[in-house]
């Protein structure tokens, strides 16, 4: 038994996991239309490389990074998730808390589901790590835990000695990692070895699982022993938010990642179990990321379960497949703690959709009336990042963004522990999201303002110069005309004089 540490704060939550973790993962139906947003990850949007009317095959790249190079900017390609014809490239509603539209590629499927050419890289071990990394970048893989950071950028072999595969899955309701670990432990472990190779041979490789997923744990343990892989399968306590990168690292290694730094700064990289499987598929089978596992659950669903869904599938297709109950009042993408509500279900499943919680009214508790903060400190005790949520709330409410920053708002992972514990029922995380958004926007405005200042200065300078030039031109002209006048007078005088003389 290896020694484990504890992170500060955290909360124990009702899991609601048994709703959806009993049934095996099923394939979702192929929808008539697939809607693939150009931006499904954190970073820059991709650019379409296909045109309307073009026929595409499953797994074919349809949108690529800036200048077809995924290492320059934070970006990763998008692939067709089934075969068919491109029918539109236009703005469509995307799953985002704003409910706004963003550019998407729409494919009308032909039902054949024909694969594009797949080139596996089975002998990756003999090749330098960069070859497999390029494969992963080309496959469009992002962190599938929900954050959506392009994975190839987290696979740079710079002094990484520990690889952690995150199977904690601490959010209530979500069970896709649990099911995957039970059903495909071999692929997760194979994916972990590939990642390890790409990282230049990390010394330790740990797969961490919360202790409420006993079956997943034994499945992985058994497979690891059979394959004699050098991986450590470790059970961690079930405390929310165990799945947070920094929390998991602390529990497993006792090390703290500094504020504002990435785990790589202390030689650690964390990847989700689904990402490991996607890496396995990309390298060993030559398949791009075209589908993901989604938990569809909540009391508005007849058969809550996990499905392997093609990216771009509209949510209503998936909800229909699981059995929609009547009187649905709320749809949440993500878990009940960190997810956000969507205005309707006519939006596509994207790379970051780990779960859909569909609720009828009886599951929504009436939000309690927020009361003033009594400075009890319960929030600070619960915060896993050692922040002072009550101070953050105070300054965010007063719109004092400088102070909010001084209290490290950008370290807040929006886990919601503070709001959960708050006896005054203050929606603390809403204030933090608001403050973060304002700060980011003001930085953007600042950049624009700097540009405007430069242009204004240049214009003032230009006007001055033009005025000066005009003045000198005027003077010259005047001088010239004065000269000519004088000569004219002289000439006239001379003429008259001559006349006079004769």
């Amino acid at each position, binding site marked *: 038994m290896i020694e484990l540490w504890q992170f500060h704060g955290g909360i124990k939550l009702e899991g609601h996991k048994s709703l959806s973790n009993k049934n095996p993962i099923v394939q979702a139906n192929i929808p008539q239309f697939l809607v693939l947003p150009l931006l499904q990850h954190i970073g820059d949007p991709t650019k379409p490389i296909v045109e309307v009317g073009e026929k595409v095959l499953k797994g074919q790249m349809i949108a690529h990074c800036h200048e077809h190079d995924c290492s320059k900017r934070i970006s990763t390609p998008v692939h067709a998730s089934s075969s068919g014809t491109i029918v539109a490239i236009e703005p469509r509603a995307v799953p985002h808390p704003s409910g706004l539209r963003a550019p998407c590629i729409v494919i009308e499927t032909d039902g054949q589901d024909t694969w594009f050419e797949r080139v596996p890289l089975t002998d990756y071990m003999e090749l330098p790590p960069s070859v497999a990394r390029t494969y992963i970048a080309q496959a469009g893989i992002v962190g599938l835990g929900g954050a959506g950071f392009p994975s190839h950028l987290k696979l740079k072999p710079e002094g990484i000695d520990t690889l952690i595969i995150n199977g904690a899955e601490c959010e209530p309701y979500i069970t896709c990692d649990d099911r995957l670990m039970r059903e495909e432990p071999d692929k997760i472990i194979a994916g972990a070895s590939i990642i390890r190779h790409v990282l230049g041979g990390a010394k330790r490789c740990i797969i961490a699982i919360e202790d409420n997923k006993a079956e997943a744990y034994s499945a992985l343990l058994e497979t690891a022993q059979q394959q004699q892989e050098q991986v450590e399968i470790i059970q961690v306590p079930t405390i929310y938010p165990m799945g947070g990168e920094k929390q998991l690292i602390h529990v497993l290694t006792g090390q703290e990642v500094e504020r504002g730094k990435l785990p790589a700064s202390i030689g650690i990289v964390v990847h989700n179990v689904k990402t490991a499987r996607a890496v396995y598929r990309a390298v060993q089978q030559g398949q791009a990321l075209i589908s993901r596992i989604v938990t569809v659950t909540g009391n508005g669903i007849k058969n809550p379960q996990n499905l392997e869904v093609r990216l771009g599938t509209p949510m209503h297709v998936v909800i229909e497949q699981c059995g929609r109950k009547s009187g649905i009042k709320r749809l949440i993408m993500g878990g009940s703690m960190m997810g956000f509500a969507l205005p309707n279900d006519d939006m596509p499943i994207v790379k970051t959709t780990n779960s859909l919680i569909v609720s009828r009214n009886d599951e929504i508790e009436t939000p309690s009336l927020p009361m003033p903060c009594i400075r009890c400190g319960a929030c600070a005790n619960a915060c896993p990042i050692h922040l002072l949520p009550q101070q953050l709330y105070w300054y965010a409410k007063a719109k004092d963004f400088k102070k909010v920053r001084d209290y490290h708002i950008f370290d807040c992972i929006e886990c919601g522990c503070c709001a959960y514990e708050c006896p005054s029922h203050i*929606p603390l995380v809403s204030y933090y999201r608001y403050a973060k958004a304002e700060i980011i926007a003001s930085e953007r405005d600042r950049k624009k303002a700097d540009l*405007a200042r430069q242009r204004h200065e240049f214009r003032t300078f230009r006007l001055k110069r033009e005025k000066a030039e005009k003045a000198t031109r005027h003077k010259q002209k005047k001088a010239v005309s004065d000269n000519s006048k004088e000569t004219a007078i002289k000439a006239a005088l001379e003429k008259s004089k001559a006349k006079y003389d004769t």
Partner: protein
Amino acid sequence: MIEIIAIGALGGLACLFGLLLGYASVRFKIEGDPVVDQIDVILPQQQCGKCGYPGCITYAEAIAKKEEEINLCPPGGEVAMLALADLLDREPKPLNVNGMEETLSLLAIIDESTCIGCTLCIQACPVDAILGAPKQMHTVIDRECTGCELCVAPCPVNCIKMVEIPQAVDTWKWPYPIVPLTPEDQESKTEESMEPLL
């Protein structure tokens, strides 16, 4: 004897530090007026003149000389006013913008079919965001327009319109949380969220 040594030592130290300070003031001399620059950084740089000054920098100079209030810039709004109050250690004041709203982000659009190419708007634009030549249709460079509205009035054929910059996923902001304050408030809010969604 001891007194002389003490006086000598202290005197020497005084001279030394005096020289050091003198050197530092030359070596690390700050160009320009740092307060004006700090104020200017807070102002939104629309150059719209709604504060009554021709451009943000002149308003910044007036504030720095304590000749002017800090609450006159409508585009900057409450945020800029609070930042100025904080910087200058003055009392925050409600915005005094003569009925002018805290302006949203706007963008000028020229109706290119009506434009007669008179160049009047180019002359009005404080940031050279309009492209065009005499007798040719003019157009606004979106990225550089500050939304100051100065080009609207001079146009003799009224072909310039200010439009709101449409919200996009990457510029959308989480709103300020609206929390119910009374039980009645809350009931109406809950009822709203109980409307069937799908």
